[in-house]
């Protein structure tokens, strides 16, 4: 096991203690597993709560702060958090304007957030919920759990966060979050499998010289395995998969996201190919973000998310944000 940990059982609590030490601008509740804006609840502002399994850092805790999330609820590694966390977070960030839950579409996350909605509503919090399901590698049908939530989560959290910060009411923040999700599509590839602390060995066996297409962010194998491809070929394949599912009618935000262990040098090089193929296909790019944002522990690989934006969404994207992992403007 090549891990910088004490024991698997304490990784999440340890990380929260480390976050608390590094980010005095956040309220980190280690016992209850919450990361909250220090100034929450902000008067007149809708609260934004997200969460999910740990192992995807900086998602979600790294996105808590002015202009983005009000609170994040980290579960165990790759395990959705429990309802008590989200209910407590909702109570902590509700200023009376209501709270939006941003939920990645996984059975576990959906069930636990739904239970949290019940608990929080019992406490008198007005709640709305938006599901993120952008991953086109998964068929969305009655016979699956539906598309997974991956890279678009960042777009939803940033843009809805900016709307909330600007004082939009709950219904509007919810509608914007929904619009961002509906305008977003992702596809991911893995160059190596992921090793979770609890298991200690890779979740699947991927020989060097092969890659998995259509992977998720939880170490699930993808839909297909192929011999290794070049950066150029991967960009063509990935962008094609995304555009086949949804052809944007306007300019897009591009997220070229690393899965955790792919060096930034490679990600930037991959971005060059993504931009080339987008240009060739006549897709206009409004903004590009390159980095490790929605990760899968030590997995090597990448995903591409495109989000079609109108003027309002672009303005909200450009609006100031002050979190551990995403910062600009002011």
């Amino acid at each position, binding site marked *: 096991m090549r891990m910088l940990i004490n024991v*698997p059982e304490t990784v999440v609590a340890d990380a929260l203690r480390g976050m608390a030490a590094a980010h005095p601008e956040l309220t980190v509740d280690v016992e209850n597993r919450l990361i909250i804006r220090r100034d929450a609840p902000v008067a007149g502002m809708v609260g934004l709560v997200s969460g999910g*399994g740990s192992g995807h850092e900086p998602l979600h805790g790294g996105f808590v702060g002015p202009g983005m999330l009000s609170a994040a609820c980290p*579960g*165990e*590694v*790759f*395990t*959705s*958090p*429990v*309802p*008590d966390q989200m209910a407590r977070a909702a109570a902590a960030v509700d200023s009376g304007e209501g709270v939006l839950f941003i939920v990645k579409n*996984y*059975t*576990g996350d959906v*069930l*636990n957030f*739904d*239970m949290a909605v019940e608990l929080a509503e019992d406490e008198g919090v007005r709640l709305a919920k938006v599901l993120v399901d952008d991953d086109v*590698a*998964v*068929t969305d049908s009655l*016979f*699956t*759990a539906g598309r*997974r939530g991956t890279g678009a989560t960042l777009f939803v959290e940033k843009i809805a966060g900016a709307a909330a910060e600007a004082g939009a009411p709950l219904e509007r923040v919810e509608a914007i979050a929904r619009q961002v999700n509906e305008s977003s599509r992702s596809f991911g590839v893995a160059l190596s499998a992921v090793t*979770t602390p*609890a*298991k200690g060995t890779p*979740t*699947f066996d991927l020989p060097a010289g092969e890659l998995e297409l259509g992977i*998720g962010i*939880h*170490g*699930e*194998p993808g*839909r297909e395995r192929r011999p290794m491809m070049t950066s150029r070929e991967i960009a063509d394949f990935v962008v094609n998969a995304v555009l086949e599912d949804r052809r944007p009618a306007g300019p897009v935000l591009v997220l070229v996201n690393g899965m955790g262990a792919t060096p930034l040098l490679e990600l930037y090089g991959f971005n060059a190919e993504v931009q080339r193929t987008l240009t060739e296909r006549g897709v206009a790019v409004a903004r590009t973000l390159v980095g490790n944002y929605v990760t899968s522990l030590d997995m090597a690989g990448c995903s591409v998310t495109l989000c079609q934006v109108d003027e309002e969404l672009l303005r909200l994207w450009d609006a100031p944000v002050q979190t551990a992992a995403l910062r600009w403007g002011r």
Partner: protein
Amino acid sequence: MLDADFFRRWLSSCAVLVDREAEWLTELDSAIGDADHGSNLQRGFAAVTAVLEKESPNAPGAVLMLAGRQLISSVGGASGPLYGTLLRRTGKALGDVAEVTPAQLAEALRMGVAAVAQLGGAKAGDKTMLDALEPAVAALGDTTDSFAAARDAAEQGALATVPMQAHKGRASYLGERSIGHQDPGATSSALIVAALAEAVA
């Protein structure tokens, strides 16, 4: 008649079995899921054991409702709310009497399993815990002897998930690649039913 102590024995058998098989459950989950099912249930049933040591409800229904609530508050993932609901709904159906008959338990468990199906939207053949739970509760009868039959039915049900293609949960992302693997949730369900048979032995 089955009293609160019987249900405590059941849950502590669950904890023991889950502990013993945790690595295997995680292994199964790593093939078609995210490699956490074993540790999820270990954490959950350890928390159940702990809360039952602190609080000792006297009625079977209360024991199960407390255990179910504890699973929901400590497991997370898909299995936390599902197993939590199974126990809570079963406990609710048992009411607040001090002892229940095997027939009453069978009936209550059927309601619990139905609640799981409703919550998760899965049905038999979707390659989930239901493929073990449904045959198990179908095999339950009016005597505790039927617990062994339920155990066998659950085991068969878990094995029968191998050739299935998953339609619910994480494994459904794999499409046809989910075929050929035993479902971790069906496997843990078989353990939970086996624990029932152990508790009566």
